[in-house]
């Protein structure tokens, strides 16, 4: 029994209350503990990834109950990958939050942050559908706490929308699980695979309903149009490090679709057939469109970035929607890319917006470090829009390559390519206003003369190397993802193959007869 599998959940779950209670009066202690915890989480995640890389499906029987009667955690390549992704992102985000002082602008940031990590890791590791619901709750409530961190009217308003939409999703999750349990009598994912495959013809209608309701639930999380409405306001108004951390939250939805709808409701079972893909595909195309339109139409930087996230989710889900091993592989590559590029953009935007004093895309005098920020923005935007040389381009090529089916190729390719073009335009406009046009504004001396007598405003302080480092790290990871695209995709190929090998998963999880006394 390898207890490390449960460590990504237990570690933050034990650390968070300590931070909340023992360390709540001293931010330095809280920072140290939170940082140490996150580093440890990353180390554990690396260990788990190494463990999973062998191809074995590791199962952890909680409470020592045999599956499917108790809850199991399942560590395969996919869950290990997602946990590793979470831990790396968390490191970057935490660093940014500490370096920019975001964490001190409200209460309990670090406790909520750790709880959030616990929720995300728990969702990735679980092998039980109901437990997935529980961790959806954990990460929802923690993310709500983080989202309204530091308060403010607009943020609170957006927070209400966020939590209400997601609670609606959670409620529906219960309906879906109820339906599923009413037909199959089980909630263990491996057992569901078996039960759904062996289902009687008369059960098909209800299984299909459950599958579709689950798709809606995960679609809310993954910002699938028309369930995405919470995202723009949430990401635009969340504290920047939180928005960056949320880059993984949409991926929780995508992961759940990949996990559940590939394994349990895959296209090869009689009950659901191609139904999931048939619905997911057009929705993903719409998602790309809504994202791209929003990017080009945005008047402010933060909504622009938020819509670009929606667009990238569309591309990701488009790759998922074909439900082939290769499609999943490309989706996973794009998922990694999309996570870090969104994080890089939001962190960078924080540095820029906090110095400009607002995220409006209007002409302003250039702020400090204009050249540096412009260069970083250029790189991050290239990544997000899917231009070479960063991983966005490779990811896009991979996804296009996966969409070769005769019935998806025309619409799928058109959506991705035109969506990219619009996104590129949107970023180019924003960047040229933010960083270029600003240099045409009157120089500081002239402005000072104009407002003689008025107290001169202190120019914003330049960002320290420590504050820029996380953004750089995210970009560096993207660069690494590009250079090592070969080994990464090769690993993802194995990951996808393991995911599609449901028989292997089932036999690993249901193998043990149980040692319960």
């Amino acid at each position, binding site marked *: 029994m390898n207890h490390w599998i449960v460590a990504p959940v237990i570690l933050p779950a034990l650390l968070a209350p300590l931070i909340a209670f023992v360390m709540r009066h001293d931010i330095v202690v809280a920072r140290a503990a939170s940082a140490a915890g996150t580093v440890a989480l990353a180390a554990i995640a690396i260990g788990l990834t190494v463990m999973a890389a062998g191809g074995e499906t590791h199962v952890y029987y909680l*409470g020592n109950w045999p599956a499917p009667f108790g809850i199991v955690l399942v560590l395969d390549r996919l869950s290990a990958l997602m946990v590793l992704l979470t831990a790396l992102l968390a490191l970057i985000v935490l660093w940014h939050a500490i370096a920019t002082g975001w964490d001190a602008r409200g209460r309990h940031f670090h406790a909520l942050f750790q709880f959030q990590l616990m929720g995300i890791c728990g969702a990735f590791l679980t092998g039980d559908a109901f437990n997935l619901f529980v961790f959806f709750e954990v990460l929802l409530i923690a993310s709500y706490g983080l989202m*309204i961190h530091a308060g403010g009217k607009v943020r609170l308003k957006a927070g209400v929308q966020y939590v209400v939409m997601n609670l609606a999703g959670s409620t529906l999750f219960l309906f879906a699980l*109820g339906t599923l349990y009413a037909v199959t009598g089980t909630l263990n994912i491996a057992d569901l695979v078996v039960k759904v495959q062996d289902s009687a013809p008369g059960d098909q209608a209800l299984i299909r309903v459950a599958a579709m309701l689950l798709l809606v639930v995960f679609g809310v999380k993954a910002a699938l149009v028309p369930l995405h409405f919470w995202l723009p306001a949430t990401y635009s108004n969340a504290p920047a490090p939180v928005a960056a951390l949320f880059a993984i939250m949409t991926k929780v939805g995508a992961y759940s679709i990949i996990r559940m709808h590939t394994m349990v409701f895959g296209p090869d079972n009689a009950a659901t057939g191609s139904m999931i893909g048939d619905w997911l595909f057009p929705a993903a195309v719409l998602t790309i469109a809504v994202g791209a339109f929003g990017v080009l139409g945005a008047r402010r930087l933060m909504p622009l970035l938020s819509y670009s996230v929606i667009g990238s989710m569309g591309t990701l889900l488009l790759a998922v929607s074909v439900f082939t091993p290769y499609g999943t592989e490309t989706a996973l590559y794009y998922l990694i890319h999309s996570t870090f590029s969104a994080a890089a953009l939001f962190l960078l935007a924080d540095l820029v917006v906090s110095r400009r004093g607002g995220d409006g895309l209007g002409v302003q005098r250039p702020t400090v470090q204009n050249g540096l920020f412009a260069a970083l923005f250029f790189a991050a935007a290239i990544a997000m829009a899917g231009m070479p040389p960063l991983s966005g381009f490779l990811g896009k090529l991979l996804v296009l390559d996966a969409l070769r089916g005769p019935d998806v190729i025309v619409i799928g390719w058109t959506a991705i390519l035109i969506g990219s073009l619009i996104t590129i335009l949107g970023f180019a406009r924003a960047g040229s206003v933010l960083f270029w046009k600003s240099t045409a504004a009157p120089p500081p001396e002239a402005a000072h003369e104009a407002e003689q007598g008025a107290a001169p405003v202190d120019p914003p302080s330049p960002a320290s190397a420590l504050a820029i480092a996380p953004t750089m790290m995210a970009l560096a990871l993207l660069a690494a993802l590009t250079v090592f695209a070969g080994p990464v995709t090769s690993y993802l190929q194995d990951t996808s193959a393991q995911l599609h090998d449901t028989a292997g998963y089932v036999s690993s999880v249901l193998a043990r007869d149980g040692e319960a006394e």
Partner: protein
Amino acid sequence: MFSDSSLLPIIAILPFLGALVPGVMIRAGRTACASFTAIPTVLALVMLGTLAPGVMDGTVYRAEIVWLPQLGLSASFFLDGLGLLFAGMILGVGLLITLYARYYLSGEDPMGQFYTYLLLFQGAMLGIVLSDNILLLLIFWELTSLSSFLLIGYWKHLPEGRQGARMALTVTGAGGLAMIGGMLILGNVVGSYNLTDILAAGDQIRASDWYAPALILILLGAFTKSAQFPFHFWLPHAMAAPTPVSAYLHSATMVKAGVFLMARMWPALAGTDMWFYIVATVGLVTMVLGAVIALFKDDLKALLAFSTVSHLGLLTMLLGFGTPEAAIAAVFHIINHLTFKAALFMTAGIVDHEAHTRDIKRLGGLARLMPITATIGTVAALSMAGIPLFNGFLSKELMLHEAAHVTWYQNPWIVGALATLGSLFSVAYSLRFIFHVFGGPVRDDYPAKPHDPPFGLWAAPAFLCVFVVLIGVAPFLAQPVVRMAAEAVTGEELSFYFKIWHGVNTALLMSIAAIVGGVILLGLHRYLDRLWIAAPRPEAKTIFDGLIAGVVGWMRGITGWLHHGAISRYLAVFVVATLVVGVAAFLGGEMGQQTRALTPIPPVAPLGWLLLVVATVLVVVHHRSRFRALVLIGVIGLMISLGFVFLSAPDLALTQISVETVTILLLLLALHFLPKETPVESSGGRRFGDAAIAIAAGVAVAGLAYAFMTRDFNSISDFHLANSKSGGGGTNVVNVILVDFRGYDTYGEIIVLGIAGLAIFALMESLLAGPAGRRLRNADYTLDRSKDRHPLMMVVATRVMLPIAMMVGIFIFLRGHNQPGGGFVAGLVFSIALLMQYMASGFAWTTRRQRLEYHALIGFGVVIAGLTGVGSWFAGRPFLTSSFGYFEFPPIEEFELATAMLFDLGVFLCVLGAVMLMLFGLSRLARHAGETVNKEPMEYDPSNAVAAATTRERR
């Protein structure tokens, strides 16, 4: 082992590595910066030089680095004649531009940045011509778009620069994306993305069903890049870039990328009617159109830009002909155009630099003031005009010869005629360049006094002019290079000889006609110009800007309309979407027969149901009055609890009742700070629609519930029933499921509660510190307040009840494992007991009498539950494995102790802490709103009165 081929990736990467240099070296001065920028270019050129002899002999060098094998993308490079020619041109002109830019850029321009961008571009361009993998080629292709975006927008304070950059990116970017599609299709047809394989599979490609889409998409990329009609409009606007950029990108290299691609793909794609009609026609139209417009441009750079468009059209047309002879002409003209056009751009830059204007109408007579520049400009322009003894003449002659022999839709003369027309205009604008800039009398109204520039500035164009004349006089010098490249294009052995004099033939006559006509046209220029200015003509930039503005506005409208911010609409969309997919899914599958008979309805059930329905309807009716709605919601909650009782789920009923009580109490307290009425926010129609949606959703849920309550199914619950006592040590299966079978779920849920407590606390902190706190302080609570905030009866009653309630709580906690109850319910019961206490006597008064920290309760709860789980590790068991045993401590009878109980304690503490923390938040609100803290537990304390009376009596 080191082979020559391994130089290729090094050549390709050198400019990118070199791009890091200028940014640093600019600190050592401008000359040092320029010199060091030249180093990577020179190095690459030297390496290329070592490979050149081999290529001339017909060797094709290849190097491959595996990159992304799943996709078929590899970093493979190859060098053949065509690649060598282009690589040489890119690096050679790059070197000249580096020199030129050193003297061209002013001290205020950030030169380091310029050279960085320039090297990035050089690398991208070099990558295109060296790629042996079409996906790699795509990457470099898009990189040229990006780096040219940076270069065009280099003078970022100029709006023309920014707009030009964006326009170029839009057009070439769009083409690039189309090309991605085309290349992927091509790769799919051939089964490989290797250029070598693709070039060898021409017949297979042309026979494929996918030939047409692939061709069109790839040509879109090539046409946009090479500024072919109707995508030509971006190039003139890209001239806002500094002149070295125009000379390098927009005449010599980047715009040739499209031509290069067509030449490269020639063996794979050319040779069909489709190819001919698209490529040759577009080229022809572009050639004529560009030449005509160029004549009427007064801006020197605009003139050259449209001339470039025209010449690119010429090249495209030649490639479109699809014959080897045309390919030879194209390759030859690529070289010639490079030499004279780059020189002309640099000349224009010099004129601009020295005279401070590029407006032809403000120039003239410069020949005397700047003789060197004038000489260079004249030589290059004569070549552009196609005057004999300059290299432009030779390739134009070849072009006219080919054009004269092409039949277009059974029309044998149209192509030749139009080509002559294009040449005619070409002669006219070239001569205009010479005569209107350098010729004529010296003027006295130049914006600055023109004079010849320093050597550094004119060295580069002069160097190019040497080639113009050399090739023009001795064309056989260029022959081996042209043959090498042309053979690489066509893939076959070619034998030809360049001569200046071919005898009197059609081409010569056409050429003479063009020259004579051109001279006449220039003579008439003044009149034609007036006509041109007066004539209405579409302005590409206005159209483009309008289009973009329209698209942006449209998208802004759609986005704004979709996301207009009302949560009610978002929820409506969510519900409708759910309904639609749910119903569709249901209808698509088979629904089995009902297997359970309906049970008879006991008389009490309809009553409860009716109550539930009435209460729900009343909530809808009265939802604006919040207190009333809350009371009604309480009724609904109680009915649901009763429903659980009715369905034999006592644990659920118990939990539901206590949850109901706590939430209603907390909501009541919270409502105090909120408006008592909900304003009307939606129209009648809206409400009608919402009602329809709600009813539909309700019916669907009822149907779903009915569907699965009337069917039999097997579930894992049998295992739970069987193992509850033996494995979990409890007879209450629900509790054993909660703390044992699925303790991990419970662990997650108590953490949710704990987080909620923390989040509420944090929220309250930030709320009270902000404007909401100020509003709260100044709020006027209109409701009459009770004069008796803490009534005697209630204080006394709650005090009596407190110990009883706590005993009940402990009892429920202890029996939980075997009877309905457990930590969760116990925590709620405790909370209710304390809540009552707080309500009766006031929060502050009560808090002073207890020393527990709420954060600690939550913390301890979560930690205890967690540690209980971890404890099982020490027994070698997984997280949360329970263990239990039966103990006997006299005088108590045998009883059971289970680790699950410890876990349940964690649950208990967490629930209690969370509720208390919420209450604490509310009381903070109250105090913020001006509530006073009472010193006494009750407003009127009879014992005080009695004491006072006694004191009085004693007196």
